[in-house]
């Protein structure tokens, strides 16, 4: 099929026509900012004097002066951030996916008040992150936080836990809040996938007497997999770039510092536009690599469908 018929070509033409508005907008909106970040990564630009920068090559990434190593790649904090981010992403996205599917399965059932429950489930996602993170900060407070109070009155813990301050629990707290906040995202997308399923093969499964759990794993899951995979990709993207939750709950805590927090610190707090842009570029590479790996392992097919 080396050469396509002009029918196919016409179809492709109209496809490109359809793609154009989206691509133009994206190029306009994202093109310059991304390019700029990329370029700045190779300069020593500083926010206090943005005009006066010079190119420094890969110095922001790696350089040696007087036997001492400089640059991101030599910065243990950066690597700590990378590790934190990946740890956070793997755990929270896994939890969110599993919980999201469970919630979606429940919401998929017919029951009285389903509409209200659907709305209720979406609430965590609907509350602005800065607000909800602060709210959790308050609720997780060791002295007057409701979580400690609850856990203590339930007898689960003996003395209040300083959730966000304790290095051991800081990440737990962050993951907990993130899971609470973004499970609705997964749930809603999974729900949509569930609702779009072709219904009749389920009848076949029912008649064949296949156990619901098996049906779920063998029929439902494979069928919603494409949508689920995409949902996971976007969740993972967000998690890999996580910022707000951590910034509000456990700011500047090396145990929970993620790549984005690190980059933001450089870019905004330290005004090191060059260095920060380099970090952002590196962050991009880490994310791209992770997502590619995920798509490879999860066999996400990009080229499916259509004719």
């Amino acid at each position, binding site marked *: 099929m080396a050469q396509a018929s002009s029918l196919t070509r016409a179809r492709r033409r109209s496809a490109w026509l359809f793609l154009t508005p989206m691509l133009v907008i994206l190029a306009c909106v994202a093109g310059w900012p991304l390019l700029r970040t990329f370029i700045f990564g190779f300069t020593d630009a500083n926010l206090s004097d943005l005009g006066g920068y010079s190119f420094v090559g890969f110095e922001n990434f790696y350089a040696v002066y007087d036997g001492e190593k400089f640059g991101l790649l030599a910065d243990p904090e950066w690597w700590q951030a990378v590790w934190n981010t990946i740890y956070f992403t793997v755990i929270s996205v896994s939890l969110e996916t599993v919980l999201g599917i469970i919630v979606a399965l429940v919401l998929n059932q017919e029951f009285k008040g389903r509409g209200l429950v659907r709305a209720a489930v979406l609430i965590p996602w609907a509350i602005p992150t800065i607000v909800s993170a602060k709210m959790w900060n308050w609720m997780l407070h060791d002295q007057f936080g409701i979580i400690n109070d609850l856990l203590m009155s339930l007898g689960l813990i003996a003395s209040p836990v300083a959730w966000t301050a304790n290095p051991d629990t800081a990440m737990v707290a962050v993951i907990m809040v993130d899971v609470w906040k973004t499970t609705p995202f997964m749930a809603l997308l999974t729900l949509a996938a569930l609702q779009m399923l072709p219904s*009749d093969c389920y009848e076949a499964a029912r*008649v*064949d007497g296949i*156990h619901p759990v098996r049906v779920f794993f063998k*029929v439902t899951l*494979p069928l919603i997999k494409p949508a689920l995979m995409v949902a996971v990709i976007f969740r993972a993207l967000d998690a890999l770039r996580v910022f707000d939750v951590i910034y509000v709950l456990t700011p500047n805590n090396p145990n929970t510092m993620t790549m984005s927090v690190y980059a933001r610190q450089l870019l905004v707090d330290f005004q090191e536009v060059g260095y920060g842009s380099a970090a952002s570029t590196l962050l991009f590479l880490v994310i791209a690599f992770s997502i590619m790996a995920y798509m490879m392992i999860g066999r996400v097919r990009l080229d499916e469908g259509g004719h």
Partner: protein
Amino acid sequence: MSEVVLKQVKKRFGPIETIHGVDLNIRDGEFCVFVGPSGCGKSTLLRLIAGLEDISDGELSIGDEVVNDKAPKDRGVAMVFQSYALYPHMTVYENMAFGLDLAKRTKDEQRERVMAAARVLQLEELLDRKPKELSGGQRQRVAIGRAIVRKPKVFLFDEPLSNLDAGLRVQMRIELTKLHEKLKSTMIYVTHDQVEAMTMADKIVVLRAGSVEQVGTPLELYHHPQNQFVAGFIGSPKMNFVPAVVIEVSQQTVTVKLDSGKEVTLPVDGSGLDAGDRVTVGIRPEHCSLADQDTALLSGTVEVVEHLGEAGLVYVQAGGDELFVARVTGDTAIVTGSSIGIHARVEDCYLFDQNGQARRRLDVDNEPLRAQLATG
């Protein structure tokens, strides 16, 4: 024991009642065929039996047990869906093996059973394809395969052969019959194919608009339809109906006068009929023969001649609203526009009263006589 018994089963979709109190008794191991016009409720009945739809009213039992509230999986049925309902993401093999898996069959046994079914269904070369890469008939065969590998107590087939070519259909018919003999499961089978219905069924159930019109063996329905609807439904091309008036009623015969003026005496039960009643005489196309216009029951001009090869169908304008159809030999030389006369033996005719109810035909039951006639 897997007798299927329906007692006053009703089904409503919203406000519309689709099944109006069906009573039915399908014996263990019986091959029961449902026939009826499109939309009469055949699939719905199957789905009720399978447990895919809730029974709105009435009672359904399978093998002595009321199963109204039982989940489909506990009913021991397998079903071939009219719309196939294949698992789109599984290969043909997986589609067929999926139902087996649960029953904790060993992989070997699964493979064996699936391969056997695939062989029968001529799907061996397609086992690795997904449904969307199959032709319509191939999909349908996969759907059949999925049911037959399971060997359940009750099979439900919803028009399982409708998309197969004639040759394959005959083969499948034979295979299903064999399967039935081997497994002795109860089979409930929906079909629009007269040949399938007549050859496979132990019992045919004729449905019409959600009600049972008649239940009986194929030949019972053919020879003794209870009413005009069943008479018209069983047999293809369908029976011709000729209006007539009763002239004389004796114990074993009824003499009627056709609209054409011809008088015939039919060997049917005349009790209750009176001279002057309007009745309908039914004549099947295959019972017609050509005759001189003066001895013929009816005569008219030929409007259309259809050549089927093995036979010909002659459509005659004989005065009624509908054309009269007669089946003639395949090498017929009758041409459109010619005038012909049509005759049928009186013992082959049917008689229906004003309400469409059939009069009992007395001659057909006389088996020795008929046998004598046949060989003669």
